Each structure stands twice: as structure tokens, then as C-alpha cells.
């Protein structure tokens, strides 16, 4: 039996100081106040973070947190990463699955906090009976796949029950949107967690889920598990995620004039059927995979067959795909061959780049090229919509920070635009846009919301169902919807499970896990966690009122007609005020 924490109100946290090469196991109170996951990451940043210091300050923590239901129920399979973002300087979160969540659970920790900076490039190995920092200086510059392969030997053991979190050249080189790759197919994708890891001289974190834990004592547990498992596997509830997956969105979005094309110069195109979810499934889909603890298997893995020699010699690349990466290097870059979309995605992945930001940043670079703001002197390769070979090369150049231009582009499209011109057409909503040009609600939401993510609220869905213009109603929807999602990211459930884990089911889950008081006070705890996140974002410099939506977003047409710039601005301002109030300091006691 692994060392366990018998007091369920305490979080068992490994705080590892990479500078000192020592770990400390802390028992941190607060389960009833912050639940876990998002709430726990915020709590730990409050405890260990340096809100006023730079994101790359060695003292900044890089936090990985799971929740009370992790592993105990289906789709409770995600980990929350909390950190100060090099992209925007704010406290930020990024979420990923793979095996990370269950590996942390079975290693016996609710959270892992990395502080300090390793003297040499290192890998931290954590298991239920192992904490070890390995010198891996020889992995400097290695791409994420080579790193993964070598680490399976370097940190051997717990095969199948081990999670390997690693960075590529982009993370080592400090790109503000470098990601952390998790178990090949998943990512802590957005806002630059990979660069924070790189600044710590930490190439990888290997978590071995090699401990055993006691089964919940509640006799209702096996039955409740079975009921939820049947709900997610037997009903059509999860169909869209495991059938075509999220790329099923392409044709409906295109039909609704809501799919961003060629740096958002258009919102629909007759070529959409070439890169539809159906096209990917028919031509390239090899197999599905799942995060540990999730029977849905939403990970779609496609095959790229690359002929690298004219004498019919081939290399095979297996590339996980989803709507967002497909959009960012597909329609946004004018690329409509699914194989080429995956090949560009593969190159971005190898660098350890957030492919959404990298693709959207390159879309800006193409338009900047067209307008004469930059030339091949800066870009090294001629960037043109549809030229997949050029984009593959450009992904490598961003990952390797090849020159001043790519160094700037690796900090974000808006950073490059500030240096070279073209801010009006940088498709940045807090960070590079996700694949929804659905209209005013979504643009305002991504701009202001906590993670600047399409998953912060259901705004993209709201846009597709509502034509009326009612600022108050929309802001109320955004505020309410965020709270429901924060509850799930505290547990930590996959957000695809939001139709399953409704409040009454969450209450049953927590009661079953021996947390009846938390079950009774779950709404207040979720609200508390949500506000803690916002307070931290503001303590690290965020002013929602200062956000701006670039001009390009007011120049397009959706199914509702031309975007109403005044209405969009009213939504942005209205949501910003609501957020300001959510992040207001705690009243003095």
C-alpha cells in the first residue's frame, strides 16, 4: 500500500525544489474550500507563487494538480497545470489527460509542485516509492518524440502505468506558447507551460503510477461506477467524441459561416469537404486511443505516409488530430490536403509548440507577407496560403528560434505584429484564436475569459443558437457557464463529460468518496475556486477592461450577417466588468 493521506480534507503535495534536488511532502488543508484540480492549483500558487516576479523566475512554481474524483470514476482523467504564463504574464491554467492524472493518483499525490531551476538539464522521476532527479543533458534539443522514446529506457519501469511529460526545442528556447507534451498524443497546450518547464532546466517529468490505494468504503461505489460507465458508453451522449471526433465540427461550422479560413479573411469555403471530419476518418484515421480512466477514446490518430526518397522509401508518422489543430494548420493556413494538415501538425508537435498558436501566428505571417510588411529576408521561406512545405519548415524555425523574426513570432502573433506592423489582422483573442468564427459572443468570451480558451465557456455554441442581441443575458450566460465548468475542472473531469456530471451526480460521486460535507457545499466551493483563480490572474497584472478585439474580427460575416462591432464591444466590456467583480479582493474579515 502506498503512503496515503487518511485525512481526506488534506491535499498530499510533493513540492520538489530542482535547485536543491530535494522534495518536501506537504499536507495542505483546503479540500472543503477549493475541491482540487483548478481550485488546488490556485491554492498552491497562492502558497508557493511569486505574483510579482517574472514567469521564468526560478522561484515560480509549476503546478500539476488532480481532483478528489480522479481515477475513481469514468472520465475523471485530467490534470490541471497552474503556472505564471510567459505569454501574458498572468497566472494561467492548461489542462491535459493521457495517463498523467491516474499516474499522479497512483503515485499517491494530489499535486506536484516544481520550484527552482536544475543545474543541468534534468528529468524528475516520481513514483509511489521513488523521487529522483536524473541528469539528461544529452537530451538538449531533442524533439518530444525522441525524448519520449529515450526516456522509456532512461526512466524504465511501470510500463503502461507511467506518464511522460516532456518539452521540445520550443520549451527549451522559451517560446511563449511552448507546450508540455503528455504521453505523445496529449498536451498542456496553451499559454506556455512548456517554456516555464524549460526555464527550470527540466526536460521531462516522469510519473509512475505504481502504488495501490484503498477502495472507497461506501458500498454504493461499484454500482455508481457501473451506472456512470454505462451512461457514457451505451447512450449516444459521447457519440460525437468517439465517432468522427471534434473534426465533425468542420462542415457544420463552414455551413454556418463560422470556420476561419486564410487568417480569417473568410468564414466559409467550398473546399471544406476536403478537410472535414469525414475526410480525415475515411482517408487517414488509423486508430483511437483514450486517456487512462476514460472508456470514450476520443483521441483520433491519423497516419501520414511520407515518401522521403523517389525510390519508394516511406516514413510513417502517427499524428493525433482534433478540430483545433486541424483548423490552425488547415483552413487557417489555406491547406486543404488532410495529409499535409497532419504533417504540419506533426512538425509543430515535434518542436513542442502549441499548434493552435503556431498555426494562427503563421497565418498572420502569410498576410503580413502579402501586404509587404515582411519578406523572405525575415521568413527565410516564402510563406503563402496552401504551401504546406513552407509551413513545415516554418514550424521548425519557430521551435528553434531561428532568427529575430521567428523569435518574435514564437512570442505570439501580436508581439510580431507590434514589431513588424499588422496588428489589425493578428487573430488574437487573449491568445491566438481557436477554430470558431461563430460571432460576437465567442470573440468577446475568448478575449476576456480566464484561460482565453474556447473551453472556458460555451460561447461558441451559444453563438450558433442565438441571433438576438442582449448583452445582459449573454454576460449572465458566460458567468454561469464558467462556474459549472470550473466545478468540473476541480474534480477533475474531462469537459466532454459535462452532460454526465450534472450537479446531482457530482454530489453522489463525492458522497461515495467519503466527502459528504463537500458534496453538500459543492456550489460554494466551486464559486470559491473560480474567484481564487480570477484573483490570481488579476494579482499577476490582468485588467479585463484593457482587453481589445483586433479589427479583423469586426470585418467578417457569420450566419447572423456581418459582425456587429458595437455589440461585440458591448459584450466585451460587459463581460470584463463581470470578471472584474469576480476577481475583486476577498472582503476583509
Amino acid at each position, binding site marked *: *500500500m*502506498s503512503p496515503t493521506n487518511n485525512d481526506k480534507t488534506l491535499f498530499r503535495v510533493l513540492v520538489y525544489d530542482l535547485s536543491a534536488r530535494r522534495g518536501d511532502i506537504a499536507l495542505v488543508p483546503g479540500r472543503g474550500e477549493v475541491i482540487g484540480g483548478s481550485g488546488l492549483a490556485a491554492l498552491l500558487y497562492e502558497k508557493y507563487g511569486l505574483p510579482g516576479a517574472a514567469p521564468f523566475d526560478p522561484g515560480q512554481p509549476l503546478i500539476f494538480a488532480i481532483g478528489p474524483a480522479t*481515477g*475513481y470514476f*469514468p472520465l475523471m482523467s485530467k490534470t490541471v497545470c497552474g503556472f505564471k504564463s510567459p505569454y501574458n504574464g498572468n497566472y494561467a491554467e492548461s489542462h491535459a489527460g493521457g495517463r498523467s492524472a*491516474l499516474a499522479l493518483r*497512483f503515485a499517491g499525490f494530489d499535486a506536484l509542485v516544481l520550484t527552482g531551476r536544475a543545474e543541468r538539464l534534468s528529468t524528475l522521476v516520481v513514483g509511489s516509492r521513488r523521487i529522483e532527479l536524473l541528469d539528461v543533458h544529452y537530451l538538449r534539443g531533442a524533439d518530444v518524440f525522441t525524448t*519520449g*522514446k529515450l526516456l*522509456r529506457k532512461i526512466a524504465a519501469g511501470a*510500463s*503502461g*502505468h507511467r506518464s511522460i511529460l516532456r518539452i521540445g526545442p520550443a520549451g527549451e528556447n522559451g517560446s511563449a506558447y511552448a507546450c508540455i507534451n503528455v*504521453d*505523445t*498524443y496529449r498536451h498542456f497546450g496553451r499559454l506556455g507551460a512548456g517554456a516555464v518547464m524549460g526555464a527550470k532546466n527540466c526536460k521531462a517529468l516522469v510519473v509512475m*503510477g*505504481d*502504488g*495501490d*490505494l*484503498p*477502495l*472507497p468504503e461506501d458500498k454504493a*461505489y*461499484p454500482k455508481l*461506477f457501473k451506472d456512470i*460507465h454505462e451512461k457514457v*458508453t451505451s447512450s449516444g451522449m459521447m457519440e460525437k467524441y468517439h465517432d468522427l471526433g471534434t473534426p465533425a465540427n468542420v462542415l457544420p461550422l463552414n455551413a454556418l459561416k463560422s470556420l476561419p479560413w486564410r487568417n480569417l479573411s473568410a468564414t466559409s469555403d467550398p473546399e471544406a469537404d476536403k478537410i472535414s471530419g469525414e475526410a480525415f476518418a475515411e482517408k487517414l484515421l488509423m*486508430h*483511437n*486511443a*483514450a*486517456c*487512462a*480512466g*476514460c*472508456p*470514450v*477514446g476520443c*483521441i483520433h*490518430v491519423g497516419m501520414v505516409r511520407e515518401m522521403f526518397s523517389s525510390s519508394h522509401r516511406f516514413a510513417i508518422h*502517427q499524428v493525433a488530430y482534433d478540430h483545433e489543430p486541424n483548423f490552425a494548420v488547415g483552413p487557417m493556413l489555406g491547406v486543404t490536403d488532410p495529409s499535409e494538415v497532419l504533417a504540419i501538425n506533426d512538425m509543430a508537435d515535434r518542436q513542442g509548440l502549441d499548434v493552435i498558436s503556431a498555426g494562427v501566428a503563421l497565418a498572420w505571417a502569410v498576410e503580413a507577407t502579402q501586404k509587404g510588411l515582411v519578406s523572405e529576408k525575415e521568413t527565410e521561406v516564402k510563406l503563402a496560403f496552401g504551401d504546406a512545405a513552407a509551413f513545415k519548415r516554418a514550424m521548425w524555425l519557430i521551435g528553434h528560434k531561428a532568427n529575430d523574426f521567428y523569435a518574435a513570432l514564437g512570442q505570439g502573433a501580436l508581439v510580431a505584429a507590434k514589431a513588424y506592423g499588422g496588428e489589425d489582422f493578428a487573430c488574437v483573442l487573449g491568445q491566438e484564436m481557436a477554430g470558431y468564427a461563430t460571432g460576437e459572443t465567442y470573440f468577446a468570451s475568448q478575449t476576456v475569459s480566464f484561460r482565453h480558451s474556447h473551453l472556458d465557456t460555451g460561447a461558441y455554441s451559444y453563438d450558433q443558437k442565438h441571433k438576438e442581441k442582449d448583452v445582459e443575458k449573454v454576460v449572465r450566460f458566460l458567468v454561469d457557464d464558467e462556474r459549472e465548468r470550473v466545478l468540473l475542472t476541480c474534480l477533475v473531469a474531462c469537459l466532454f463529460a459535462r452532460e454526465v456530471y450534472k450537479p446531482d451526480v457530482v454530489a453522489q460521486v463525492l458522497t461515495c468518496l467519503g466527502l459528504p460535507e463537500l458534496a453538500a457545499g459543492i456550489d460554494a466551493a466551486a464559486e470559491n475556486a473560480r474567484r481564487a483563480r480570477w484573483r490570481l490572474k488579476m494579482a499577476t497584472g490582468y485588467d479585463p477592461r484593457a482587453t481589445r478585439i483586433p479589427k479583423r474580427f469586426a470585418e467578417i460575416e457569420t450566419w447572423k450577417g456581418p459582425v456587429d462591432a458595437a455589440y461585440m464591444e458591448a459584450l466585451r466590456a460587459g463581460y470584463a466588468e463581470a470578471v472584474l467583480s469576480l476577481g475583486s479582493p476577498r472582503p476583509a474579515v
Partner: protein
Amino acid sequence: MKVHRALRMERCIGCHSCSLACARLVYKSFSWNTAGIRIRSTGGVSSGFQAVLCLACDPAPCAAACPTGAMAPRKSGGGVLLKKSLCVQCGKCAAACPVEAINLDAGGNPNVCVHCGQCIPFCPHDCLELVEAAAPAAPCLESCHVADK
């Protein structure tokens, strides 16, 4: 008598629902190790998954290696049953297994598939099956079996 076969592992998505079910329902544990079936990748997730479980050897080398008779052959059909009260946690059974199907927990207690089939309904891709021990099937199906027309 039936034996448990992982017949269609080409379909496995690596969700570990089977291991978690076995731990939960058979070994009364919350674990992906303390289970009679465990899922490994065969060299990273891009190379596919392998189920590690008892292949119902007959005679069973684990039973032959057991010094106390705790690991005893089932009456028919291959496979073993574990009598916990007789087990001295020596680990000989695990060492004798040719496919590493027996897990030893932190206390040295063996965990082995008892061919009960309780994990099977939790597999979302129908990889697992209980088959008649009297008509033994090879431990695979899709790759090497052509259905009768």
C-alpha cells in the same frame, strides 16, 4: 468452465477500464496494478497495447512452483485459483509465469486473473471474451483468424 482471453487487442484504446474493474470488483482495491489483467503499451502508446493476463496454462507452471499449494490449478480448463490463507508471499509463482501475468503487490501478494469475466463489460471495444475452456482458443483472434463464410 471458461477461460478469459484478450482476443481483440488490436482494438484496445488503452483506457485501463478492465484493470480498474478487476481491482475494484475482484481484488477490492483502487489500483491499476492490483489486478488480474493489466494493460501495457508495447513501446509507447503509438505502438499499440498489450493485455497482460493469465493464459490458462495446463499444467500451470505457477502452481507447480508454489511451495504451499496456495496457487492451485483449477479443476479443468487451465488457470489457477489462489488460496490466500496458504500464501507465504514468496513470489515463486510470479517468477514462474512465462508472460508476467502475476502481479505482486507491495506486500508480495499475488494478483492473477481468475477467469471470472467481471472486467469484460467494462471494455468499450469488445477486446475481451470468456471462451469455453473445452475448445481452447489461441490468445488472439482478429489477426490470425479468418471467419467461416
